């Protein structure tokens, strides 16, 4: 059974109220969800709170999962991202977040930690991101991890809105072409 098949089977158990399905997915994806949440919130405590909220949301809304639109892993990552962004926005100010731990370093294909980790997929992703034009990568990461709209990104980077849209579109196309479509875990 592939990981995606196992994910869907676990999700079906969640949908029927069986917490063993949640536990299986928790063990498989919490570190990934927590990594995204930590990147957004820059705080281990806040990131864990957001991930806890994400799992509760996923449990309650498991019936709304649409297998035609997303993998289970992608669905969970987007829930964690959304809860982290909500939490970030609810903090009283950006300063409060920035005073805490520095953001994790972005991954790179030649990062020794990743070599040690032996994660070929992560290296593949890093190479795909590294292949992007610097502006394309910057606006895509800002949109995803900061949750900013096109116009907000244009304001932040003092760049025309049309240029931002073009960069995002081109960057996503290139990224989509380079990333593997098969098994993710």
């Amino acid at each position: 059974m592939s990981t995606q098949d196992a994910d869907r089977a676990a999700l079906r158990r969640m949908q029927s109220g069986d917490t063993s399905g949640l536990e299986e997915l928790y063990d498989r994806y919490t570190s990934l969800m927590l990594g995204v949440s930590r990147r957004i919130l820059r705080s281990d405590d806040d990131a864990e709170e957001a991930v806890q909220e994400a799992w509760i949301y996923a449990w309650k809304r498991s019936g709304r999962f649409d297998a035609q639109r997303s993998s289970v892993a992608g669905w969970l990552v987007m829930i964690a991202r959304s809860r982290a962004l909500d939490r970030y926005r609810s903090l009283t100010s950006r300063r409060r977040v920035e005073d805490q731990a520095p953001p994790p370093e972005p991954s790179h294909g030649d990062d020794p930690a990743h070599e040690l980790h032996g994660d070929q997929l992560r290296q593949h992703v890093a190479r795909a991101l590294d292949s992007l034009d610097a502006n394309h990568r910057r606006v895509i990461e800002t949109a995803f991890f900061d949750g900013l709209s096109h116009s907000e990104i244009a304001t932040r980077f003092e760049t025309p809105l049309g240029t931002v849209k073009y960069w995002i579109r081109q960057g996503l196309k290139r990224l989509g072409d380079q990333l593997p479509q098969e098994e993710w875990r």
Partner: protein
Amino acid sequence: MNENREHAFLDLATGFILGNLDELEERRFLEHVEAGCSTCEEMLANADAVRLGLAHATPPAQPSAQLKQRVLEAVAAAGPPARALPKPARTNTAQRWAMAAVLILAVGLGWYGWTQRQRGDRLQNDLAALQQRLEETQRFSDAEIAQRDLQLELVRDPNAGCYEFAPQPDAPAGLGGKVLFNPATRRAVIALDNATLPANRDYELWRIEDGVPVSLGVLPRDAEGAVVLHVADAGNPAAFAVSEELAGGSSGGTPRTVVLVAAVGG
């Protein structure tokens, strides 16, 4: 699909992939994709890979030993998951009018309290968006300026309510909009997006009073499918509706194909 409309949806497509659409935008976009846009469908084919790729680009983090237990306890307290909602089935015109009537009644009775609470924030946002749109127009004739003044006056009127048009099953993907209406003055402003049609078709505005549709005229639209119409006397309707008609509007006094409905008070 014309080029402008396609571009508008490509912005929604990138917003969808990066998770930055609100619920309404996401619904509109997915309806558009389900209507058969191969360009957007192609972009969506990579959405999962892009999202997971960005997630995998961050170093994974080890959760504390207590987190799993906290999650399981919270889930136990939350009770069983909500059941999945079935997708709505397509209905015929008579059923849609009946459904619209039921919707209006439900909105008027059951949701009144809730809408009052939500209305403040939503109205403020909608008014700001409408005001921005009205003010973006650059050149007007004297008559147009007078019209705009009336519209802005209504936008700023605290007694006016802003109601969203709900797309009906026959609505083209992307068609949507809002109506701003003051029941005291009976004035209304209608704003639609993506109201594109072939040359031999028009959209027509209706008010629904006592369950009876009354035409308020054909909606003028520009080349990009944008509609902004000021109605000096919209009556006292329970709802507004937009129908697709042959060019010139309905000849029989009844709507041909209803594509949008906005319940007043909803």
